[in-house]
């Protein structure tokens, strides 16, 4: 997709988000993405952006897809994360093995509860499902979209990664730190209709997570931009000691520097070569770092108002932190980056 086409697509996503997300961003945080929004995302071609057209997806190229994730995140990182999960986690894992499921995903007719927790760093509890006759049964820890019609989960007992097509029940919502609009919670599974997506389930899940570099970068940059936009608007009108906050050097300087970093990284993202593993990883590392710093500054300059959800800035702060834990393996990424730079295994002591 050319730069011009990316700009046009960005305008379309922005217009959609202003109409369909902006006013209900807080509701999304509380109640999750509803079916109506899911289907609107689908009808615009955003939900199944990378899903092949034969399954009803849009088949958009990588840069177009990143533009969608990035722009949606400026309004709601949760909605952007949902699109990322569908296109970069569910679709690659399910692939051609379940055409009907893929069609339902692209159309927003169904969602897939997904637990990446088994391959995330710092997790001590592994999912373990037991055979009960022909059924597989057990509990699954923190899953995104816990009310989904389907579920993808790793079974530590046999090492396989499964797609469960029945017997999936969301049991307890856990609003947690981040991406509350994804409706995170735990699952109970008692399924007789399931498919093995991979016999090397852990490797498959890790590969998917490690392949999210550009998506996470796009999401992080959108999250930073969403917070910075709010802060810049706020400091123009908010007065303290009878002057707008923007007139104070430290405020203007901090927000400007963060925005300048955002612009530089966005420009890098728009033209990055998808086969350049070092560039992709660099973008992710720097973008997530920026998101954490920029959202923190944006919240700080809102003062007490930044600390309450009505203002709409604290969610960016929470999501930026969650992004660095829930959709990547930071220690592993450090090793990857060191290997890219040194050309051999480094930094492991």
């Amino acid at each position, binding site marked *: 997709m050319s730069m011009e086409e990316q700009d046009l697509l960005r305008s379309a996503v922005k217009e959609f988000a202003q109409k369909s997300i902006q006013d209900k961003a807080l509701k999304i945080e509380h109640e999750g993405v509803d079916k109506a929004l899911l289907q609107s995302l689908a009808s615009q071609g955003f939900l199944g952006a990378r899903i092949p057209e034969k399954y009803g997806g849009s088949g958009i190229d990588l840069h177009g897809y990143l533009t969608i994730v990035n722009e949606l995140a400026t309004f709601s990182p949760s909605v952007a994360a949902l699109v990322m999960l569908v296109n970069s986690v569910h679709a690659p894992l399910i692939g051609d093995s379940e055409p009907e499921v893929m069609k339902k995903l692209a159309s927003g007719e169904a969602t897939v509860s997904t637990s990446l927790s088994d391959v995330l760093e*710092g997790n001590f509890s592994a999912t373990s499902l037991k055979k009960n006759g022909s059924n597989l049964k057990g509990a699954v820890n923190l899953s995104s979209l816990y009310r989904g019609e389907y579920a993808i989960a790793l079974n530590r007992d046999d090492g396989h990664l499964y797609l469960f097509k029945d017997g999936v029940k969301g049991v307890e919502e856990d609003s*947690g730190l981040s991406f509350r609009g994804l409706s995170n919670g735990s699952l109970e599974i008692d399924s007789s209709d399931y498919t093995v997506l991979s016999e090397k389930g852990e490797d498959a899940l890790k590969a998917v997570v490690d392949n999210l570099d550009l998506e996470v970068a796009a999401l992080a940059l959108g999250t930073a931009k969403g917070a910075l936009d709010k802060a810049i608007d706020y400091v123009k009108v908010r007065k303290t*000691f009878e002057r707008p906050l923007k007139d104070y050097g430290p*405020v203007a300087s901090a927000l400007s520097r963060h925005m300048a970093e955002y612009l530089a990284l966005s420009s890098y993202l728009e033209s990055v070569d998808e086969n350049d593993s070092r560039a992709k990883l660099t973008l992710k590392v720097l973008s997530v770092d920026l998101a954490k710093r920029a959202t*923190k500054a944006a*919240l*700080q300059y809102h003062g007490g108002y*930044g600390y309450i*959800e009505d203002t709409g800035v604290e969610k960016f702060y929470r999501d930026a932190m969650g992004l660095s834990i*829930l959709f990547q393996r930071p220690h592993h990424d450090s090793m990857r980056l060191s290997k890219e730079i040194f050309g051999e295994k480094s930094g492991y002591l």
Partner: protein
Amino acid sequence: MDFDFPEDIVNARKKAQEFARKEINSEMAKKYDRLEKFPEELRKKAFEYGIIDYQNPWSMLVTIEELCRADAGLGISATVSLFGAEVIMLFGSDEQKQKYLSMVQNGDKIMGLAVTEPGGGSDVAGITTRAVEKDGKYIVNGAKMFITNGTIADFFVMLIRTEEVEGKRHHGLSAFIVDSDLPGFTKNKLSGKLGVRATNTAELILDNVPVPKENLIGEPGKGFYYIMTFFNISRAYVAAQAIGIAQGALDRILEHLNRLTKEGKTALAEEVQFLASDIATRIEASRLLAYKAASYLFQFRPNPTLTSMAKAYASETATFAAEKALEITGYSGITGDLERFFRDSKIMEIWEGTSEIEKLIIARNLLKEYAEVNQ
């Protein structure tokens, strides 16, 4: 120079730790956080246990630290029911002390401090809530925002404008005790806070609220000075809250690393060790600053530069520690206590004077001292 606390303060810390172990746990903290519910039972238990004694500020300082180490939302809620009492202690009349302080010192009643206004924040001198004398009372109109204990306090120490003084905004402000059951007094609970969600926070609306004249604290027009004096004290307590959060985060990092070691994982990666060392060092530095500031304060010779340094540095240490702790512990942190510590810690850099305000105070005092020395 002796850096050790006297035995009674060491014992106060031990008693607070004991109380925290018995009465505060992760499940409870999670529940009150989720429900945004004030833990009234816990507050009462803290009084019954004998750990709340604002007559002994050193004891309170270490108690706040230890309870926030267990959980900031619960710890602050259990220790904040006398918020603003020092204004009455230092500047109130004997009658006011007798009538109001006696009610809160034993835990029967709760009080609050109402200074911040919608659109106000750090700019305390910009207060617009007004009191006008009429028929032997002050009639108060205006609004207060982000008020701790807002819907549960029985009375507030409130900063109100009683006079407009051209060009001197901090003049003409007076401090009052305002009972919360007076006619025209409305309290709206603020929900959806990022953190410290067990604490009670509200917006107060005052619509022709009749405040008795005898509820004026000290002299009219001196309110700004009284409140600034109070902030000097409360900032030391906020530093203690922040140190507690940072220490709690470090406790959980060490627990995590210990667990990793036992499981033969890469617990001792040097990068992680460096971070844990940084956090521990910053906590120690925060303690030294806070205790030094408190030692001046509690000997009635406050040093605002030190107090602001302690508050700003400890607050930034709390957010640094909570953020790094989450990064180090990853999934177990985000599904455990640390995600709450991360959310709770951010308020430390905002309330009782943002970090920016503290830095302005520090710089202005340094420049003033420089000018005095070099005159």
